[in-house]
């Protein structure tokens, strides 16, 4: 009860900060929008998706779930930079000297990040619709797709929280939050079909926690190319695997981050 209340109070604080520094949100939007446009118009022509129709819009349909998923994982950077900044300012001493729930500073941050992620997804969906992306499924399934994306983003912001607590400066936190995201999101089914990768890389890509969510969202959006056959186990059970990975990440990283926060000497 206390923990929930405290987390909401801190989340409110972080959302307020967001509205006071709108640049952060704006730049957070530019990057994924740029990726949508670059991938569709620059790379899109060169990438053929097996099983897709010859429709020039086919790659777009395939790509969008991947871009969405990549975008939500960037919550890592926001969380790590934000937490790290809080830790270097006197404010965290105030929080730590208050009779508030121990994890609330971190939970509040990750909840606020989810609000930001949701906002970015709304804008990104509009842009994607404008350039010709369409869902082909029931609305509630599409909605569930978005929920899976938010869950993944929430999980990744806990990774960000741990990074933010582990590095010494907000600047380092930003880059530490981002470097590993590129291999993680590229060695996956997000941008190209895994079948086109070398054989040794394919299992890695299939078992990548990120790929499961991309595949699950594609399914829920009705964006899986009609002729594409999935034989890898995580791809065949993408929705439960996606939920499983996200929950596992939350449990592990939340535990580690809260412990680190409690032990932090500041």
């Amino acid at each position: 009860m206390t923990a929930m209340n405290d987390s909401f109070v801190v989340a409110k604080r972080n959302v307020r900060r967001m509205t006071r520094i709108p640049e952060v949100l704006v730049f957070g939007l530019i990057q994924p929008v740029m990726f949508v446009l670059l991938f569709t118009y620059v790379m899109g022509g060169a990438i053929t998706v097996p099983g897709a129709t010859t429709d020039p819009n086919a790659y777009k349909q395939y790509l969008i779930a991947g871009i969405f998923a990549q975008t939500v994982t960037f919550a890592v950077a926001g969380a790590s930079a934000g937490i790290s900044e809080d830790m270097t300012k006197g404010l965290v001493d105030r929080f730590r000297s208050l009779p508030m729930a121990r994890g609330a500073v971190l939970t509040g941050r990750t909840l606020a990040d989810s609000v930001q992620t949701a906002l970015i997804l709304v804008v990104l969906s509009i842009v994607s619709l404008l350039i010709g992306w369409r869902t082909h499924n029931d609305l509630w399934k599409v909605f569930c797709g978005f929920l899976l994306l938010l869950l993944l983003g929430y999980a990744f912001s806990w990774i960000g929280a741990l990074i933010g607590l582990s590095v010494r400066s907000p600047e380092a936190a930003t880059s530490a939050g981002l470097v590993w995201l590129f291999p993680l999101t590229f060695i996956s089914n997000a941008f190209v079909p895994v079948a086109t990768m070398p054989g040794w890389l394919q299992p890695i890509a299939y078992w990548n926690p990120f790929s499961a969510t991309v595949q699950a969202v594609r399914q829920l959006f009705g964006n899986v190319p009609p002729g594409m056959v999935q034989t890898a186990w995580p791809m065949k059970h993408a929705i439960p695997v996606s939920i499983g990975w996200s929950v596992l990440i939350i449990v592990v990283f939340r535990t580690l981050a809260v412990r680190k926060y409690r032990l932090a000497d500041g």
Partner: protein
Amino acid sequence: MSEAAISAEGLVRTFGDVRALDGVDLEVPEATVLGLLGPNGAGKTTAVRVLTTLLRPDSGRASVAGVDVLKHPDKVRSLIGLSGQYAAVDEYLTGQENLQMVGELYQMSAREAKARARELLKRFSLDDAAGRIAKTYSGGMRRRLDLAAALVVRPPVMFLDEPTTGLDPRNRMALWEVIEELVGEGTTLLLTTQYLEEADRLAHDIAVVDRGRVIARGTADQLKAQIGGERVEVVVTDSAALPLAVEALAPYAIGEPTVEPHTRRITVPVTGGARVLADVIRDLDARGILIHDIGLRRPTLDDVFLSLTGHVTEAEEGGDEDEGGPQSPDGETGAGRRAGRKKARV
């Protein structure tokens, strides 16, 4: 004697090779102010962090308002207010939002927190700035907001870590007045400061800290008495008159006079205060000695501080090989003795 609101025993905390706290004992009776006085890096902030549950000591015990700091940190947190060296406010929230957030984190209802925030902003003359984000506040305003945040639940025990460092004199005075009001209301206060004037004005008791140890403690007056009582200082107009003046002062002196020929200054320890000063003036005048300047000087905390920390520093720099030697475990009882010992070694 009233129960101690803050007590600490043998606090030790090391950071790598640095012993930030090297066996600190403290005791602050209820509704009194203890001034923790020391230079930068003396361990003042570390002591505050331990007592406010922000840092665990390597060893030692501490309790606040009768609650064990190490065993029940959560309980302690609901009894204390902390205002640190760096204003702990969110600079992107308004003054009102900052205080309201703290209130809500103390489990107040939103309405209660809002009302309390308004009340505090008014008290600290921040009501005009209540709706502005703290980033736009001046240094003094931020400090006041920070202090207000520490007062949200009217805690019985407060910790103020260098509350006026970096403030201009006007803001410092204003903050002192607020602190005095708090103490008048019965709050127990532990205050750290580098300013002797501040400790002298606000604190009932003073503990002088250096290199993680309490090297002296007592009231301001006791500390001043410790390094000697009052002195008469005479500056004569003509240096030729110095021997004559020393002779004239001899009957009043209770110790050896100090003569500084180049400044034509004589200092003699005396007792009896202003009356002695009047007698000295009359006597010198009667002997036809021209006085350039004369005054009765009581030792300031500066003198205390320099005499204690100055010598300790010299002794330890010159004597690293001594460190293996026996160290008095009770650094505080022997404040004067310790200082004396160090002095003798120099």
